[in-house]
């Protein structure tokens, strides 16, 4: 991709688990590059290894083989402390089930993440961006699923990370709410220039991506650019 800097690069990464006598190959020889400001969708059925891939590039898991680079640094050589700093300052996570702290309000959940970062964004501004100005002092149990996911996105964005890694962000939401979350992620990508990577089994979401990486049985089976990404509002599933 001419003119764009490589943000992340994976070289032949693999991940094996041992479950009793059986060796499970969750990921095998996966290689790809992610560029600054891209909106990437990793598409695959469940068990295809996409979550494993996301966890490895997010520094939440270590591969059994291969190398992962963030800009020019090889994160697969990082010790536990460096990996933590990488997660703290470079990566923002959005989970399928939001995973908010139940005893903190929406705003406090966002601050929980922002207050340990090197260069966080203004929390009020971020809360405004996700349209939660009037719900800031609510606890997760007082919010709908969509609202909770917005808080989760705000939590990830407020850290001002280089990349947003979203694991099935609409998986627990209804269609309409799901679309609003996709619009928000699109806005984060387009307006704030953040690289966004979504992993999903929902093929419809791939239509809004700049690039779609397809996976099956732990392998990347295709890695294609989407010449004409459509706005999230036009997605139907």
């Amino acid at each position, binding site marked *: 991709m001419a003119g764009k800097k490589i943000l992340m690069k994976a070289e032949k990464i693999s991940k094996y688990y041992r479950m009793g006598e059986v060796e499970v190959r969750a990921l095998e020889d996966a290689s790809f590059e992610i560029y600054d400001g891209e909106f990437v969708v990793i598409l695959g059925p469940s068990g295809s290894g996409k979550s494993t891939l996301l966890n490895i590039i*997010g520094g939440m898991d270590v591969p059994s083989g291969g190398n992962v680079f963030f800009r020019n640094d090889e994160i697969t050589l990082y010790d536990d402390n460096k990996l933590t700093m990488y997660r*703290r300052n470079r990566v923002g996570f959005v989970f399928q*089930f939001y*995973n908010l*702290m139940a005893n903190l309000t929406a705003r406090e959940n966002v601050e929980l*993440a922002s207050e340990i970062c090197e260069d966080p964004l203004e929390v009020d501004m971020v809360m405004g961006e996700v349209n939660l100005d009037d719900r800031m002092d609510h606890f*997760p149990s007082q919010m709908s699923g969509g609202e909770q996911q917005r808080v989760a996105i705000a939590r990830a964005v407020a*850290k001002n990370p280089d990349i947003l890694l979203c694991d099935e962000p609409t998986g627990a939401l209804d269609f309409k709410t799901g679309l609003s979350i996709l619009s928000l992620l699109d806005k984060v990508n387009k307006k704030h220039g953040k690289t966004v990577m979504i992993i999903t089994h929902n093929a419809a979401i791939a239509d809004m991506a700049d690039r779609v990486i397809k996976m099956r049985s732990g392998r990347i089976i295709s890695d294609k650019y989407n010449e004409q990404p459509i706005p999230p509002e036009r997605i139907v599933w």
Partner: protein
Amino acid sequence: MKKFNLRLYRHIMKAKGQFVAVSMVVAVGIMSYVAISLAVMDLEVGAQKYYELNNFQDLSVELMKINESGIERIRRMPRVESVQGRVFFKTPLEVEDKDEKVNVGISSIPEAENRINDLYILKGGWIQDGRRDVLVLEQFAEARGIEVGDVVHPQIGGKEYELDVKGIVGSPEHIYLMEDEQNLLPQPSKYGIFYVSEEFAQQAFGYSKSYNEVLIKLKNPEEDGIFKDELEKELERYGVQRIIRREDHMSDRIVAEEIRGAKQMANVIPMVFLGVAAAIIAIMISRMVKNDRTSIGVLKAIGYRNRDILMHYAKHAFIIGAIGSLIGVFVGYLLSGPMANLYQEFYRIPFKVRIFSWNYLGMGFLLSAIYCIGAGLWGARSILGIMPAESMRPEPPKKIGKTYIQKITFIWKHISFSWKVVWRNVFRSRKRFVFLSVGIAVTFATALMPAHMLNVFEAMFYDQYGEFMRMDYEIAYTKPLSEQSVMEIRELVDVKGIEGKIEFPFEIENGWKSKVVSVIGLKPDTEFYNLAGSDGGILSLSPDGMLISEPMAYILDIEKGDIVNVKNFIPFKDDVRIKVDGVVKQSLGLNAYMDIDFMQGKLLDEGMITGVMIDSTDRVKEKMEDVKNVSSVNSLEDLKNIFKEFTKLTYAGLSVYALFAGIIGFAIVYNSTMMSINERRLEFSSLRIMGFSKKEINRIVLKENLIMTGFGILLGIPLGRWLMELLQTSFQTEFYTMTAPIEKNSYIYAAGLTVFYVLLAQYFSSHKIKRLDFIEALKNRIT
């Protein structure tokens, strides 16, 4: 506040009941440590200061008679710093109630400066008129309501004297006042000390320019052992009866024993409480970490380090410890004041010593911090193993097989569904089962202590004054008399049985150990002493041996068959080596028993006795009132009554232990139940949907707790027995041995108290089930 800390704060506030319960356990442990340590330090320093200020003796000597030149000989001994002779005798005191026998020790006090055992004037002033002024020891004055200006009437040699009370005084020699070793409890209204001028005492007792006691201060008090031997030789000609070193001085020894015991308590109690608190905290935090698995994963994904998260949970434990120890240190410090006052009033130290020591307060904080943070880190250690990616996935269901009870199909088929839930859970949550059972066992064992100790004291005193000593009255003479005196008493009082006896102090040596004890001479076929061995078999007094009491065997490490040396201080009488024929089962007192004829021949004079024992329903006290040479008439009933008074006081002390047991039991059961309810929200919600009422679910939890309580109590029985044995060994002093078996009633009492605490904890935790929103619990995925 950092949001991470805010999360912690809200966590604590949500489970404040649990938090408070554990903090209380810490607080009680630290409170006991601080209060006892500070109060004991005040007592120790106070006594030391009193001894220094008032020049307390290093040694004292009781002898037949010593004149001024004898005193001068002692003064010239190289190790001696100062020496002082005194005249000391016990005599009866005339009191209003003719039935009451009251004795006083009349002690001479010199005019000279730098007096040894100097007096502390509390009221009034010093002796003005040496012929009729008297200073009265405060304990006695207080007990009998004697004031400055009153007139007292001691009887000396059959003659009644009229003395004016010029002052009420304290003495370093009588911080704790007891007439002799045979009286284990002080009776300040029955025995006191009068201080008179040397001139008066010497004249009244016929000791012109001489004394019957010597007080000595050494240049180096640590040399008292060597000096004692030197002194013995030096004073051979003066008929030395007893040389008492500081460590053998009754009042000082009792204070030292109290200090030693209290220090031991100050160390043991906090260890028990902090140990229990640490166990609860470790389990609480480990369950919390298990429940927070996903949250911990999220925190790690956000960028929190392992040590941040570890410290987050350790902080939880630390705050419990900090709040507990703050309360403990504060209340402990407040309590130490009244406790020190009680000590200083019970042990008469005339001035208040309050020492503030940061050391104990700091140690209180440090102890709780070490225990709580240690427990917190231990409980939270699994955080290190949580991988953020892994923690996002739901935990695979546990592999669960049939529980033991399910395998007994015959029983399993016949129990109801709710009982099945109960039994299955009891056997499945093994860690909880072990924790709760051990906790209940500790509660039970602690609750057993007050009940048993009371039984032990009762058994000890009733054995001593009912089983062991069987006379109705004991009459003691002011001086040894001939056996003829038995006949005289028989004529005066209508008796069913009467025997003369000798009771005389001798120093018994076994190797390097030695002790001055009361040796009692009795008729071999005595009816008044039940000389039985620990197996209950009767031991007979042989014509050439001796029997010894259990406390004496313990202190001097003597066994049956050993040969001991009996040191004889009486002029022209040699030391005698005597074989110990057996050990008498006797809980109280250091005593040796000999055939009266053998004792008279070998140690004293033929035909001499020091008192009589009688069986009589006659008005003995009244009839003995004016009898010459009688120093005291004690009925066994009097001694039992003193004990009853003592047990009333003991009840208050022991009830504190019952409360301690309650705090431990409550904290363990309450926390464990709250944790269990929290973790089983899904299970209880499912039961609610199946149609179980909140009451029924509460009943399930109660049944589980009661089953575990049952196991805990069973486990607590051997634990309690072990603890009581340990306690009996550590309480074994030279004054008494405790060997009473644990009574059935003590077990019942302890079990009842334990169940009560369990029910109380159950009551307080039941609100958690009442408030359980089962629909929310079933759909909830937020962490």
